[in-house]
C-alpha cells in the first residue's frame, strides 16, 4: 500500500515528515538500520530519487546517518528524537488552539474543554 501524499506539496518534504513520525513513534528505533532507498521508494510508491533527496535532508538534520557500505541508520541521539517529538507536539497543540479559536472559543473555555476530556480519558482507562 503506497503512502498517502498531497500532490500539491513537494513530495520529499512529506516523506521527511512521515519518516520523522516513524522515528518518533518508535517504528524505526534509535540506532536501527533503515531499509534501502529502493525498498523505501517501492513501499512509498515514489521515485527513488525523491526518496534519496528526503533521506539526504534527514541526514543533514542529523536524524539519520549513513555508514559507508552498510547503509543508513536512525540516530542514536535520544535527546534529538525527544526534541523532535516535543516540537511536533507543540505544532499539533498550536494547530488545535488555532482551530478552536476559529470556532470562537476563549482560552478559559478551551481549558475547560480540555479538563473535561482528560477526565473522560482517565475514566476510560
Amino acid at each position, binding site marked *: 500500500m503506497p503512502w498517502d501524499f498531497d500532490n500539491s506539496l513537494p513530495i520529499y518534504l512529506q516523506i521527511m515528515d512521515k519518516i520523522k513520525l516513524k522515528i518518533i513513534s518508535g517504528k524505526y528505533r534509535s540506532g536501527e538500520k533503515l531499509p534501502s532507498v529502493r525498498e523505501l521508494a517501492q513501499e512509498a510508491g515514489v521515485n527513488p530519487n*525523491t526518496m534519496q533527496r528526503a533521506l539526504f535532508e534527514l541526514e543533514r538534520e542529523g536524524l539519520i546517518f549513513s555508514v559507508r557500505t552498510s547503509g543508513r541508520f536512525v540516530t542514536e541521539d535520544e535527546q534529538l528524537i525527544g526534541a523532535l517529538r516535543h516540537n511536533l507536539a507543540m505544532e499539533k497543540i498550536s494547530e488545535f488552539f488555532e482551530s478552536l479559536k476559529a470556532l470562537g472559543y476563549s482560552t478559559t473555555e478551551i481549558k475547560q474543554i480540555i479538563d473535561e476530556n482528560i477526565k473522560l480519558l482517565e475514566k476510560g482507562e
Partner: protein
Amino acid sequence: MSEILKLNSLEKRFGSNMALHNVNLSIESGKIVGLLGPNGSGKTTLLKIANGLLQPTSGEILIGGEKPGVETKSMVSYLPERTYINNWMRAKDLLDFFGDFYADFDRSKAVDMLSSLGIEPNTKLKEMSKGTKEKVQLVLVMSRQAKLYLLDEPIGGVDPAARDYILNTIISNYNENSTVIISTHLIQDVEKLFDEVIFLSKGEVLFHDSVDNVREKNGKSIDQLFREVFKC
C-alpha cells in the same frame, strides 16, 4: 550524470502543419520524466523522433550523444501508443520474438511479470482484452535493459490495480543509468513518480522543471497546474 537525450532547435512539420517548433531539451540519465500536454501538442511526434520512426524537418536530436539510427535502437525501448503485435501470436511467441530481436531482453523478468499480472503465456493475443494486450506489451518493453524508455500512454487502458503494479514495476526497474520518459494524460496517478515534467503546448516546450520545484513554486499539484495552464 550523463545526458541521455538532447534536442537542439528541433522542428517537425507535416505539410503546413507545425508539429514541433524550436524544441530544446536536455534530459539526464537516471530520471523519470513526465511528458505532458493536451491532445495534439506533439508528445507522440517527439517520442517517435527520439525512436527514429520519424525524421525531424530541421534541428538535431542526440541519444546518448548519437543520432537516431542502428546504434540508438539498442539503447531505446519504445512503447507506442498503439499496439503493433500480431494477433495470431501467443504471449510466449512474443517473448521469443523479443529475445531474438534484442540482446538486452531479460526473458525471466518478462515471465515473472506476466505471471504477477495473471497472464498465461500460452494465451493467444487475439483472445486477450485490449487492456491485457497493453499489459503484455508494456511487460515486453520494460523487460529490456535499455538506457532510455519511451512510454507513450502506458497506462491508459489498464485497470487501477494493474496500474499500481505497472507503476511499481517502473520504480523497481529504475536504475541510475536509465531514464524513463512517460507521456500521459493520467497525471494524478503518476505524478508522484516523476523527477521532472515537460509541458508541451502546440509543439513548443512551455517549461521543463523538477516536479518538487513546480509544487514549491505554485503550491499546486502537477495535475492542477495542467488543468489551469491548458484550460479550455
